[in-house]
């Protein structure tokens, strides 16, 4: 009950948010923050049970026939993520109230961000994979709505769409993967699948399922080559960037990898694919971050790099790596959330986010500067902050990587050096040196804007000094969930003088050196513009444009506007299919059942054929109408030949009426005009002949077959005795099948109304 409530209270508040915001006005953020705070406290209360391995569960049936259950469970991994989501969520709600103060659409903003928070909690608490997927998609949707929050800007809209298409596309891959995994493992419950892992990794569908899962995780967590949507997502208001696009949503992929590790992990495919994606992303993110000058883009690319590190660690797959991943998860969420909020505060106060036009803000914004400094130090991995411990663990894990350890370590060092530089550019540079002119005259940010960054930065310091606070209560249960084994975790600042420490020192020094050489790299990047064809964002755009071009071309081709081509297509398709099925099954083509035609039948046939030719080639409509009449009367004569005088009478009546009407109408029409060329006439004639041939063959086949005695004998027998009528056709029309006649009468009545309206009602 409680677990479901933590999720659905968020959805409920999301629905009510716009209305409550009208009542609460400026206090909305503070009041709303109470919900995630309560959730965090409530969940934290379970840490003892979770540590003891007693996962908390709750389950409700939703669509049992499809296997969709709202089943939740709370283990170490879920708890760690859920606390980050709800804890940072509370701070972000407060922050957003200050950041978007007075914005006309703030009510909707709260709605979306609460919807996101609830969905994200759903992702990390769900036990049922389909339920997880539903929440997963809802995070993509809320992300779309939030990135496009400044919806009148073209950039925001296209960035929102890009993020949605990429994460949505990956989401669909994930869905297919889930269904495959469900059919392999016999259940959609993660906890059940974890007990059947041997079967899964041996199954031939393991690899497809794994690839689909990875596609889902990599798109969501912005792994190369899908990383480019994340910098684009910076079009969102800063609270969104801090919350969704650095601290939580982009970690959903990481969560999925960690969660699926006991089920899908451990194989060579997993190891290589995940390691490769992580290492590449770590490096690419860092390299792309270096030349940036916009605070948020700097942070976005360094987030990409950090996500790469997390994925890489999960790919390495050792116990050391899992430890490093979980500690770094906390480290990164704290410093990156803090730095993003700081960037927003600076932007809010100065009116710019360009690091080149920021400086000396420490005197004006001391509290913000303090938060930024602490967070930046954690990012560089400076003792005694938590970031230092994180970096030590990462280096340790890379050193012990089972494959290509030196290469991974080398790339890791490069990425970390750049990260140190980025930390200095973002967290130190704007606050030191000379003051510069900014679009707005800066003041210290209000409480709501510095509370969040300072809290998170301070937490980084506190946890660095006393890592025992979370080591065994939160982090080691999470690692246990990934590894599916008992783990004892000792976190400490001082590991003694060893190679890893040396590496750390080297990283920081090299990072500082790089900081001073940053302008050189910016110029270098400026010259590399010609290489833009290498970037996936260009492929994305090209792919999209190409698809649109193809869509337009095929639509012009198919829906070309000419009725004659539509008809031609339909006739050709019909002939293709019918001929195929006519020729294929043998057995009926021997025309043994056909009696030799009698001479008057042949004569009638020739006459009708001639009439048809006259109708076709006549230049006068009148002649054509009369020729058609001849055909009709011919049919009536055939009815007589075969002993159906009732039918013949009906046919003659209809035919007479048709000819008279035709003649009346034809009288008012203009003379024939030949509009088509002889080539298209030839083509049409060919199609018509073939089509006629096809119908003839079908009818021949039907006459040659009599799979069952027909029911028509019943009508002849009972027409008089039961229905009291001598004309069988009439009896069929008005009694046996009177409902048909009702329908046809209706058709006539409607046609009359239609003609009347067409003649009388003329709108412009």
């Amino acid at each position, binding site marked *: 009950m409680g677990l479901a409530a933590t999720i659905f209270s968020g959805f409920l508040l999301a629905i009510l948010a716009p209305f409550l915001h009208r009542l609460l006005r400026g206090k909305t953020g503070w009041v709303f923050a109470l919900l995630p705070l309560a959730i965090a406290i409530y969940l934290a209360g379970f840490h003892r049970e979770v540590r003891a391995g007693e996962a908390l569960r709750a389950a409700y049936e939703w669509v049992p026939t*499809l296997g969709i259950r709202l089943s939740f469970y709370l283990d170490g991994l879920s708890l760690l993520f859920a606390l980050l989501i709800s804890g940072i969520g509370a701070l972000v709600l407060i922050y957003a109230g200050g950041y978007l103060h007075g914005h006309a659409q703030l009510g909707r903003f709260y709605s979306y961000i609460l919807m996101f928070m609830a969905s994200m909690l759903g992702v990390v608490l769900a036990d049922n994979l389909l339920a997880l997927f539903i929440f997963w998609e809802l995070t993509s949707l809320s992300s779309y709505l939030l990135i496009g929050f400044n919806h009148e800007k073209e950039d925001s809209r296209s960035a929102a769409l890009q993020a949605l298409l990429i994460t949505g596309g990956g989401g669909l891959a994930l869905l297919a993967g889930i269904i495959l995994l469900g059919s392999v493992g016999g259940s959609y419950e993660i906890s059940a699948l974890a007990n059947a892992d041997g079967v899964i990794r041996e199954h031939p569908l393991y690899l497809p399922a794994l690839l689909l899962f990875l596609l889902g995780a990599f798109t969501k967590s912005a792994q190369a080559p899908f990383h480019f949507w994340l910098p684009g997502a910076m079009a969102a208001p800063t609270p969104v960037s801090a919350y969704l696009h650095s601290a939580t949503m982009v970690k959903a992929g990481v969560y999925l990898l960690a969660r699926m590790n006991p089920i899908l992990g451990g194989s060579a495919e997993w190891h290589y694919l995940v390691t490769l994606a992580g290492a590449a992303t770590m490096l690419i993110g860092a390299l792309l971050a270096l030349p940036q000058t916009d605070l948020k883009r700097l942070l976005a690319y360094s987030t990409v790099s950090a996500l790469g590190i997390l994925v890489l660690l999960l790919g390495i797959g050792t116990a050391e790596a899992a430890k490093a991943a979980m500690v770094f998860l906390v480290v990164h969420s704290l410093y990156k959330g803090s730095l993003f909020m700081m960037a927003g505060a600076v932007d809010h106060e100065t009116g710019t986010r360009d690091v080149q036009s920021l400086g000396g803000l420490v005197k004006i914004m001391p509290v913000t500067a303090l938060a930024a400094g602490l967070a930046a130090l954690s990012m560089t991995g400076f003792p005694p902050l938590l970031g230092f411990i994180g970096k030590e663990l990462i280096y340790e894990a890379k050193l012990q990587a089972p494959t290509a350890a030196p290469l991974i370590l080398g790339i890791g060092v490069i990425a970390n050096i750049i990260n140190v530089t980025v930390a200095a550019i973002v967290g130190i540079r704007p606050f030191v040196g000379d003051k510069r002119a900014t679009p707005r005259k800066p003041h210290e940010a209000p409480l709501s804007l510095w509370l969040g960054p300072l809290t998170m930065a301070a937490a980084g310091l506190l946890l660095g000094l006393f890592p025992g606070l979370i080591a065994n209560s939160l982090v080691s249960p999470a690692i246990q969930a990934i590894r599916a084994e008992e783990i004892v975790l000792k976190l400490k600042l001082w590991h003694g003088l060893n190679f890893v420490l040396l590496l750390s020192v080297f990283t920081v020094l090299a990072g500082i050196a790089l900081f001073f050489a940053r302008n050189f790299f910016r110029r270098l990047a400026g010259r590399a513009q010609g290489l833009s064809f290498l970037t996936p964002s260009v492929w994305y755009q090209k792919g999209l444009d190409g698809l649109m071009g193809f869509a337009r071309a095929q639509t012009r081709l*198919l*829906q070309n506007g000419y009725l004659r081509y539509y008809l031609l297509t339909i006739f050709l398709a019909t002939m293709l299919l019918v001929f195929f099925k006519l020729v294929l099954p043998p057995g009926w083509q021997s025309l043994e059942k056909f009696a030799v035609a009698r001479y008057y039948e042949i004569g009638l046939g020739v006459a009708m054929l001639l009439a048809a030719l006259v109708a076709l080639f006549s230049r006068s409509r009148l002649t054509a109408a009369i020729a058609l009449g001849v055909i009709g009367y011919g049919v009536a004569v055939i009815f007589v030949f075969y002993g159906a005088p009732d039918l013949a009478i009906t046919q003659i009546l209809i035919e007479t009426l048709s000819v008279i009407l035709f003649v009346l109408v034809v009288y008012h029409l203009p003379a024939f005009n030949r509009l088509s060329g002889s080539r298209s006439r030839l083509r049409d004639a060919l199609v018509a002949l073939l089509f006629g041939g096809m119908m003839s063959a079908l009818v021949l086949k039907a006459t040659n077959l009599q799979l069952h005695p027909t029911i028509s004998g019943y009508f002849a027998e009972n027409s008089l005795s039961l229905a009291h009528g001598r004309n069988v056709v009439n009896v069929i029309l008005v009694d046996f099948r009177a409902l048909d006649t009702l329908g046809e009468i209706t058709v006539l009545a409607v046609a009359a109304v239609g003609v009347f309206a067409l003649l009388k009602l003329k*709108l412009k």
Partner: protein
Amino acid sequence: MNLLLIFPITIPLLTAILSALAWRSLKVQRALGVLGSAGLLAAALALLMNVWRGGIQSVQMGSWPAPFGITLVADLFGAIMVALAALTGFAVLLYSLGSIDERRQSFGYFPLFQVLLMGVCGAFLTGDLFNLYVWFEVLLIASFVLMALGGERGQMEGAVKYVTLNLVSSALFLAGIGILYGKTGTLNMADLAQKLRLEPQSDLVNSTSMLFLIAFGIKAGAFPFFFWLPASYHTPPVAVSAVFAGLLTKVGVYALIRCFTLFFVQDVQFTHTLILALAGLTMVTGVLGAAAQNEIRRILSFHIISQIGYMLMGLGLMTPLALAGSVFYLIHHIIVKTNLFLIGGVVQTLKGSDDLKKIGGLYKAHPLLALLFAIPAFSLAGIPPLSGFFAKLTLIIAGLKIDSYLIVLTALAVGILTLFSMTKIWNEAFWKAQPAGPALDNPAAATVTGGAFRLLLPVILLAAITVLIGAASEPFFALATRAAEQLIHPEEYIRAVLGGKP
């Protein structure tokens, strides 16, 4: 005699006749329309309830025993379709009250509307092939006149293409009936099913089955027969498009599912693989067609085609789960698509155009409308937990279960393109600021805003149902599952029509 089976035909017929008698009083016609549509809805729901509880129902018209007379049958599939037709009819009729101009109303709009509903319901209920043809004619002529009513230039052009291509369909259908009757000597569908099941040479009807496939394929708007649909759906008044969008193609889908589960099952390997291929191509061409459009109604029209592909996918896969997916898809789609057309109409009323290049700013100015659009739009795109997600999920699970990877891949890819199209409307009409240029704001919009609630009422009703189908999909899914079971095991259907006879 089971009156509930006859009500869905007689109620609209009676309403049409009474409305036609009250030709000069629009007030009476409007009241009759609301009353009749509400009555139809009530009758349809009662029928559905009855079939759910008591199994398949049938009634022999004129008491002539099957297979000699005409039998009306309601299995769950048919009853669901009737209920959906009635719901669509009711919602669109409400919308018509505030949106159809008085000139059209005074030239028989209301009687025509009822005749259309009568034709649709008749098609869903008949157990006789020729009678099915008659109902096709009824709904064709009613829809043709509705489409042309008003005689605007665009309308006429669309209506001519519409009626010509649909007459080709009717001709093929009629020829098919004649030939099938020649071979089997019966028109009663249950009788056909029974006879063909016992007949060792029954694959000799395959060539005929192709005629039916194409005739219904044209009606359903499947590839490569869909041309009439994008050529005509954007031309008539919105209410007319909306009821067409909801119901017309679905009659074709219904007929395909009915015939190709009940009696054309001799060569499933060929026919249903063909249907599956057509389904995939229909999805793709439809969604690409939509991507190339820039007006809301044209985009939505092409999406009908693409969605038809999903419904046919279930038939092509031909497993109980897949058919349940098709039925669920029909339930979801009819409601969502009708609603999207109605919303497109509200946009047009507010902005004077539905050209995405000329309009914008709706998200800011009309948040409720934005929400009402988002629900069916994201449902159509398959975003959970809305109805479309469960519909697509069912089909995808069904496809993966029997290793039909290609169609599943197609369905997933088309899903993301559908999302693309829906966000295109959202981005342009709702998020983008109203572009500068000649003021397009409809001068009539001010007066409409007063009556906007009348337009929004059916929209809200349908959106609420969409949310409900998503949030509580189990009962709907149970309904679809049982309907699919009746389709795949037609013994109960045959028994209900023919009685205990062998």
